[in-house]
């Protein structure tokens, strides 16, 4: 299979559960994936499918009511392999990794920046704790980061507060912050959902550049299949806490083998296909996480449901890169080949 040295982060059978009101929400229920250096992995799914929780788990940023139940997150730092799930949440080692080796861009740039500190201060915090640069060097680095992000007049902008930045600029400042210590892995949790398409295009261009120049592995979390088609090298489709289908972008978008992936692709109108394209909604809505279907989580909304779907299907490897979690994938694949 893959060259082991190429893998920046490897997640195996990860389970993260939330405990509220004596009930347990199995938000992430057995997720496995690898992130390669210099590649983008897109995790795609609807709201509530556990994609953001997966990201928060890797960063150890989970709220107190939740915990990592099982599984392992292996992060390759230089030549050592670190098991992130074993580290203490706020321990020294985790804090060393967080922000410098693994960085994160959050969904909403309006709330992720602290309004009472200057943007420059917030970027330099990262550099202060993770590097040996002195004050002057830190400031220069901040300015050059903002400059790289395409923010005009960075010498002036570095001393401004977030409120004088526009939405797109704030998101770019967030990326500057995340990229400050040249992380090996960048986790972007819906980085452009709150932005307009023209600004989104700017941000994508930037992320592409970073990936090429610094060989950063990117985990991009999104709900938009369009974004996946444009940016992804590898795709993982999540539904209700499980990865239902994973593979290269080619595998998943051209030859979807899980009924949910297919349904997702068919439910959005695609630009350029005109008025006569057919869109097919998925029937029903996502189940209540406290009252899940017993077997395959997608079964109640699936047109291919049979009795065998009362048991959770295992992951099947179709070829080297492509895997799927469905009982009927062979018939399904035959039909749409």
């Amino acid at each position: 299979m893959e060259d082991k040295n190429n893998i920046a982060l490897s997640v195996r059978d990860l389970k993260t559960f939330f405990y509220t009101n004596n009930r347990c929400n199995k938000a992430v229920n057995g997720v496995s994936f690898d992130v390669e250096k210099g590649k983008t992995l897109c995790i795609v799914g609807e709201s509530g499918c556990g994609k953001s929780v997966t990201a928060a788990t890797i960063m150890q940023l989970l709220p107190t009511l939740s915990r990592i139940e099982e599984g392992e997150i292996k992060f390759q730092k230089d030549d050592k392999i670190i098991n992130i799930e074993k580290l203490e949440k706020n321990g020294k080692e985790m804090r060393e990794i967080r922000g410098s080796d693994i960085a994160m861009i959050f969904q909403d740039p309006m709330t992720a920046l602290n309004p009472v500190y200057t943007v420059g201060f917030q970027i330099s915090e990262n550099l202060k704790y993770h590097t040996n640069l002195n004050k002057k060097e830190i400031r220069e680095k901040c300015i050059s980061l903002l400059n790289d992000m395409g923010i005009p007049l960075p010498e002036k902008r570095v001393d401004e507060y977030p409120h004088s930045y526009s939405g797109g600029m704030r998101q770019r400042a967030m990326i500057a912050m995340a990229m400050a210590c040249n992380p090996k892995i960048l986790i972007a949790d819906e980085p452009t959902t709150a932005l307009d398409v023209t600004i989104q295009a700017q941000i994508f261009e930037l992320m592409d550049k970073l990936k090429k120049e610094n060989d950063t592995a990117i985990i991009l979390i999104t709900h938009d299949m369009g974004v996946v088609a444009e940016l992804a090298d590898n795709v993982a489709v999540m539904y209700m806490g499980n990865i239902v289908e994973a593979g290269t972008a080619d595998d998943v978008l051209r030859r979807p083998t899980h009924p949910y992936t297919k349904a997702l692709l068919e439910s959005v109108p695609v630009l350029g296909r005109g008025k006569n394209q057919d869109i097919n909604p998925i029937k029903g809505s996502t189940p209540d996480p406290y009252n899940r279907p017993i077997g395959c989580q997608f079964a109640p909304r699936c047109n291919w449901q049979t009795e065998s779907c009362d048991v959770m299907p295992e992951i099947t490897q179709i070829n080297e890169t492509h895997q799927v979690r469905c009982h009927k994938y062979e018939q399904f694949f035959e039909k749409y080949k």
Partner: protein
Amino acid sequence: MKKEILKLRGVKVHFPVQAGVFNRVVGHVLAVDGVDLDIFRGEVLGLAGESGCGKTTLGKAILRLVEPTDGEVKYISLDDNETELTSLEKKEMDPFRKKLQIVFQDPHSSLNPSFTIFGSLQDPLKKFGIKSKEERRKIIGDLLEAVNMRREYMDRYPHEFSGGQRQRIGIVRALCLEPELIVCDEAVSALDVSIQAQVLKLLMQLKKEKNLTYLFITHDLSVTEYLCDRIAVMYLGRIVELCDSEDLYNNTLHPYSEALISAIPVADLDKQTKRIVLEGDVPSPVNPPKGCPFHPRCPKATDICKTEVPTLKKYSTNGNEHYASCHLIDLPEIS
């Protein structure tokens, strides 16, 4: 023969900007700055643009949910009576409110959580003279069934519904007075993709059944292409391009529309195009640039763009009317 339902002429909405101790007016946000638009009966007109371009304000100005500062909004009834809506008194506006309805963007904040669905939805029916409760329950029940929900749901509270269901309740609210035109203000933007498709299909089906006209406001051009007959693209309070939806994609005239279309991620590996990346952000509508409002970001801008404001001119593509406001279009203008 196409018949207009609404005629907008020079509609402007300016919001005052106040500052200082005495709330002195120091400027105006030119949210909508001179829009001419005809909406025909039975069509779906898309209104697209980035956030802050004034598309929602225009939609609300049509219904007088915000008062237009200037300009005319004419409603043309089925028997060709024209009424100017902006000059009407509040009371006189009532019969037209029945004909013009709106579906709001956020299904979570547009329903009052302390009323049942029936409690919220019966008010307009009461106001427009449906006296008996049984009749009101029947109307709302029938409409709930029309949007694939159960009749009993009307006695539930909004928190018991999912986002997609609430949006359908919002549609029922708009439908219950049998309107002629519905303004859909980002009606599907807050929904998950699988739910979005359900609501889109429902809107199209209702349009056929009830002979509706939609003004569909959205920032998502792939949705407009699927849904709309004509599309108007707005930028900084003005319409920059207005044409048949197919022509907007195949014969784009305005550089802004071109950039907007190229920036949309397409969920099809065979249709990947080169993104045209625009520099910078949308300028502030308080102090729009001189000349063409798009020129600071336009990759094709020339000297004339910096000084002269282009007007919306009529061209023809594919034999269809095609309006665009740009100095750099090579096609012959049609009078």
